[in-house]
């Protein structure tokens, strides 16, 4: 229960308090060396894949465009290193699918400075020019959603945006890359926010940061402009504080109507890393060639936050961070919503916020019982669904009933229900299956 008088940090109702393991939050960002080969997928964003504009055997410079955007819902791809194109073709991506990718053999002797740059005067640019420039940076949502930044910052014409929400919650356990970026790249972040405000027309910005990152809150507060248009607000440390619905509710007290986007209530949400990269790359006229990500987990000897070139194979990432031979489960993203990979030959992409290595699964060892109707899942679901009821229906394969009467489609798969279930029923996993079956039925 929430007691308003004992509660200073903003938050939402329900949710869980997993063990956070944010030890890497105190370590400065370090740079990774280049892997001998980089595998650069041409589809690292939601939308149409980019069109390749290089050929096998061609030399490419770090920062050079190697694939161009194919329409509005697409992003260009930049060469993450200077080298030679060794292959162009289908390569396995993290989700197991085959994706058109450019393989670059990196020139080891090269200094790997970004040579392509044309600084811009962002003050002089209008909205359309800024949008085009944002698309050219190739930035997609760096929190993991990989929605093209220029599309997200350009809401429908009928929506009036009054607030830009900057998501610095970073509520997933282990991940600390957003945290470090807020501490070390505060100026980039503020610059990115300025650009985002100009493009979206939002007159004010609220930055939400969980209260387990006091140094990030302090760093941002010290860099805020005097005009008061940008504020920072401490959020309670709780999962899934960083989901769009929950962070908007926590900061502004507004609920996104079911099935609608934040723009319908005058809000845009952007992740801090996305805006920090925007503030860094756009004025410099550069493209996205690398990103900060967290490498951590019990099976990593040197956990930390690293700048990793896009396309670096996970095997190389884990070698550099000293993965133990006991590492068995490799997760991209956080442990609550991230996905496991079947191969270490898949590359880091723009959406990779973390690479976590676990020696053994806590999930698998547990015995599953029947639902004892303890109601814990109902008490934690941030969407106020009834996972217990949904789970009982899923066991009977009543997938349509789940959607029609129990709001299955409102579930955004945060996994709180599976986390708390004392019977260890894979609730959210069942819901994903149910949603997929319903989608297939609807498409048929």
């Amino acid at each position: 229960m929430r007691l308003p008088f004992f509660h200073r940090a903003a938050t939402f109702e329900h949710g869980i308090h997993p063990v956070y393991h944010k030890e890497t939050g105190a370590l400065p960002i370090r740079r990774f060396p280049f892997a001998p080969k980089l595998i650069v997928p041409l589809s690292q964003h939601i939308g149409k894949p980019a069109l390749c504009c290089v050929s096998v055997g061609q030399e490419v410079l770090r920062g050079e465009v190697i694939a161009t955007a194919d329409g509005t819902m697409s992003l260009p791809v930049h060469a993450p290193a200077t080298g030679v194109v060794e292959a162009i073709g289908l390569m396995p991506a993290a989700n197991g699918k085959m994706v058109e990718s450019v393989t670059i053999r990196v020139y080891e002797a090269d200094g790997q400075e970004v040579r392509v740059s044309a600084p811009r005067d962002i003050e002089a640019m209008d909205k359309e020019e800024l949008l085009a420039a944002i698309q050219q940076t190739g930035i997609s949502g760096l929190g993991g959603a990989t929605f093209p930044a220029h599309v997200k910052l350009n809401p429908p014409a009928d929506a009036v945006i009054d607030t830009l929400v900057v998501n610095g919650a970073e509520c997933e356990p282990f991940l600390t890359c957003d945290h470090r970026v807020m501490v070390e790249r505060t100026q980039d972040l503020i610059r990115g926010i300025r650009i985002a405000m100009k493009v979206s027309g939002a007159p004010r910005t609220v930055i939400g940061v969980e209260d387990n990152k006091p140094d990030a809150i302090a760093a941002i507060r010290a860099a805020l402009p005097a005009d008061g248009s940008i504020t920072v607000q401490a959020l309670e440390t709780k999962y899934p504080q960083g989901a769009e619905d929950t962070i908007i509710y926590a900061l502004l007290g507004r609920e996104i109507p079911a099935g609608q986007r934040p723009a319908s209530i005058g809000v845009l949400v952007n992740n801090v890393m996305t805006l920090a990269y925007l503030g860094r790359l756009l004025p410099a006229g550069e493209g996205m060639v690398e990103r900060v990500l967290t490498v951590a987990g019990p099976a990593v000897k040197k956990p930390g936050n690293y700048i990793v070139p896009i396309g670096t194979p996970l095997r190389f990432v884990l070698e550099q961070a000293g993965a133990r031979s006991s590492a068995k489960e490799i997760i991209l993203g956080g442990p609550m919503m991230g996905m496991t990979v079947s191969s270490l030959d898949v590359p880091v992409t723009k959406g990779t916020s973390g690479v976590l290595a676990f020696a053994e699964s806590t999930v698998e060892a547990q015995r599953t019982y029947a639902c004892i109707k303890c109601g814990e899942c109902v008490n934690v679901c941030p969407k106020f669904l009834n996972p217990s009821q949904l789970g009982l229906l899923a066991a009977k394969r009543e997938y349509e009933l789940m959607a029609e009467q129990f709001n299955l489609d409102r579930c955004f798969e945060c996994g709180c229900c599976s986390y708390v279930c004392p019977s260890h029923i894979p609730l959210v996993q069942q819901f994903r299956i149910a949603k997929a079956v319903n989608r297939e039925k609807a498409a048929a």
Partner: protein
Amino acid sequence: MSMELRTSPHLISDRSVERIMKHVVLSLLPICAFSVWQYGLSALALLLVVTATCLLTERLLNRASGQASTLNDWSATITGILLGLTLPPAFPLWMGVVAGFVAMAIGKALFGGLGNNVFNPALIGRAFVQAAFPVAITTWVPAFSAQRFSEFVPTTLTAPLMMPPDIVGWVKQQGVDAFTGATPLARWKFENVTASAHDLLTGVVTASAGETSAILILLCGLYLAARKFMDWRIPVAVLASAAFTAWMFQLYDPTHYPAPTFVLLSGGLMLGAVYMATDMATSPVTPVGVWIYGAVIGVVTVMIRYFGGLTEGVMYAILLGNALTPFIDRYTQPRVFGTRQRRKS
């Protein structure tokens, strides 16, 4: 390196069915100990025999249905202890065996085991023996009799399928003078004498093995609630609604109806509110539903006590609440995030 593939979440909490149930068992131990201290060997034997019967029945039915053993989820242990606590301390052991068997076989296994049962198994067992052995289940013995640790109450050792002997002579022999053989509720109902709140709180009264010390039950319940092994809202709702109903009646006719404190502290209300109504499998899961469920149990308990033919009402009130649970859950689904009616402006 072989990679494990699994979908998120990749972390789970340390809560588990075994852990919850184990803590419920732990929290029941002080109540058992108090009961044994009060009633001696007979109560001890009853608790052990009933619990053993429940475990054995569960195991036999597991085997009969070809399942793996479910004993290590601790739920059968809870049912056994709770059932034992609801019976009179000198209840014939063979009848305790019947109660335990019915609780597990009809109350639980028939529905499909843990989580699928509609009614609290312990109460099903208790309801059965209440109907089958009406005399034995209303035969009470005095607490703190001198020889309680050296000899059994004669009824305890009644031969199977036999009716227990009359114990009036035995009670006299124990040197207990003023023993009437009536519980505080019965004395109120039939003689209009209410026990003192102090006696009820501390539990120095004639009653079932585990429904004596209200304060001890409350403390054990507090532990469970604090550790989140129990939904605190259920006992609060049950006790509050029972107290409110009793208070209304007392306002109407203070000479006829007892004080709310008497209603709260006497009989099985405390044990029922804290340990029976809160049975997870048979209580609602929705936050609003839990309040309604608790309120129904509280009101119905008082109604049965005041107007029913029985002195006690908690058991039937909870069974009624259990029956209503699916219905309550159905009509108290939480309001889904994002569906708040927007103010028309």
